[in-house]
């Protein structure tokens, strides 16, 4: 059996970095979920203070404690909920806005389409962080405000993708057949076009999650994102930054988790892209 004959899923499982990424993501999501359902994974609660403050990593506190004596591991597990949730919600928002916008553009007259895509081009060329900071000025710096800002800067890639997929697929015979059966536009889009365009969309969304996690942590780090008592990996790293000189573990561990998670999503995204399109593979020869 040659590589091209296998299903995308089988091909994905042949890429070591993608499997590693998938495993790490699954583990982190599992921990975040368990914590969200109230399972206590550490002997300390995330907000439990103690007199043992700014302790270096030890058996009792594997990642040390912060300036209020709170266990850093417990806080990182708690922060995982918010960071992962922000990443996934942004991907979902990008998918919803992007596919509606892209579908409308792909189905409209060439003039409307050109105008809509010109708008996307301009929005796409602006630095995300700049736009997010400006939106944050209006929306406030709570979780909701951050989610709106992230959603508003993340959908353009999906919109472009959905549009181009629709433009190519629109003239295929199976679409003609669906219309011949008397199916409505909406039905054709939802039942025939979207499922067939799903592969590249999933790849794009897999890259949206890590970039959302990065944007949120960066915003929180420079003090324009979430602020305490909200607890994400970004706010934890921001807290740790202030004591970099004396207590580097406080910034090291949150950063490590951001890095591992983002890297895993990027590996998975690369793997998915290669699995869905064998031509781009890192494989041997041509």
């Amino acid at each position, binding site marked *: 059996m040659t590589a091209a004959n296998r299903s995308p899923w089988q091909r994905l499982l042949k890429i070591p970095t993608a499997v590693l990424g998938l495993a790490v993501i699954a583990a982190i999501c599992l921990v975040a979920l368990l914590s969200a359902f109230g399972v206590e994974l550490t002997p300390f609660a995330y907000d439990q203070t103690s007199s043992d403050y700014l302790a270096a990593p030890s058996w009792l506190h594997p990642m040390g404690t912060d300036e209020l004596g709170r266990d850093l591991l417990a806080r990182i597990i708690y922060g995982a909920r918010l960071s992962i949730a922000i990443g996934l919600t942004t991907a979902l928002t990008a998918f919803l806005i992007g596919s509606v916008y892209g579908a409308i553009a792909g189905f409209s007259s060439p003039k409307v389409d050109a105008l809509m895509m010109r708008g996307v081009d301009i929005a796409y*060329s*602006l*630095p995300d962080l*700049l736009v997010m*900071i400006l939106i*944050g000025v209006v929306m406030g710096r709570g979780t909701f405000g951050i989610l709106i800002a992230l959603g508003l800067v993340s959908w353009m890639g999906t919109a472009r993708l959905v549009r181009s997929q629709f433009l190519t697929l629109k003239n295929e015979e199976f679409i003609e057949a669906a219309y011949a059966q008397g199916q409505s536009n909406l039905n054709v889009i939802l039942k025939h076009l979207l499922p067939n365009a799903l592969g590249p969309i999933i790849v794009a969304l897999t890259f949206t999650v890590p970039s959302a996690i990065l944007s949120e942590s960066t915003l929180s780090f420079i003090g324009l994102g979430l602020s305490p008592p909200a607890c994400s990996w970004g706010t934890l790293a921001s807290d740790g930054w202030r004591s970099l000189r004396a207590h580097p573990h406080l910034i090291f561990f949150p950063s490590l988790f951001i890095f591992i998670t983002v890297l895993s999503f990027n590996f998975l995204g690369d793997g998915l892209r290669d699995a869905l399109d064998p031509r781009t593979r890192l494989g041997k020869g041509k």
Partner: protein
Amino acid sequence: MFSLIIRRILMSIPVLLIVASLTFALVRIVPGGPFDSEKSLPPEIVANLNAKYHLDKPVHEQYFLYIGRLCRGDLGVSYKYVNRTVNDILFDAFPVSCQLGIVALGLAVIFGVPLGAIAALNRGKRQDVLAMFLSTMGVSLPGFVIGAVLIYVFAIKLRILPVGLWESPWHVILPAVTLAFSPGAYLARLTRASVLEVVEKDWVRTARSKGLSEEKTIVRHILRNSLMPVVTVLGPLTAIVITGSFVVEYIFAIPGMGRFFITAVMNRDYDLILGTTMVFAVLLIVANMFVDIVYQWLDPRLRME
């Protein structure tokens, strides 16, 4: 060529107007003004301050006043840095950010482009996997983590480079390296994709089949042709560097535009927010315009039109 430049400049005016209007609207919707601080000022003083800065006028009047001033190149006054106009502040901050950005972009090109080319020319081999692993690391590491690690190692532990500020050439090294990671990784990926595409072209096969040495084929036919897309990403690269500068200038306490933008947002310093955003917008437009012009110049097929 000349008419192209003129046309692009004229086309950028409505875009700038839209950016100015949108930013103005965004900033003015916000609850709270620049003079709401923790220690509340007496109401008479607030009223006087508002009157001085025309904040007591209806919003549409403020808008026309603002656009009018913009057209004369006057970006207004900072509410927080007393007695300094936004023009003054940006006049000092722009060169700082510019130097930092150019050094970082230079580093990104010096490291990113060869990395991508080596990866593509050794496709599937160890060098390729390693290069792509490095570039994936580059995009996965947040700027503040790179900066924190560099500061910890080189400034705190080894004490060979300064922790921050912007004084001597030594102060440029750590921030520029931090800022270079993300565009470097982007360039490496782009170069790899571009070289892989060119390698498959007919002219490369022709070059090989006429007995040209491998080195000459690579330098004259593959690299030269695959660098074209790399030249044209100056627009996105400028955007990446601007984004990075927010973090890097914050971490290293560099008095550049990114840092002033962030403090302006924190202080609700309206005119400074608007002014910095306008400068960023102009920068992006100029970068994209430059790309269009270089593209025409590089590709004779486009020059004909």
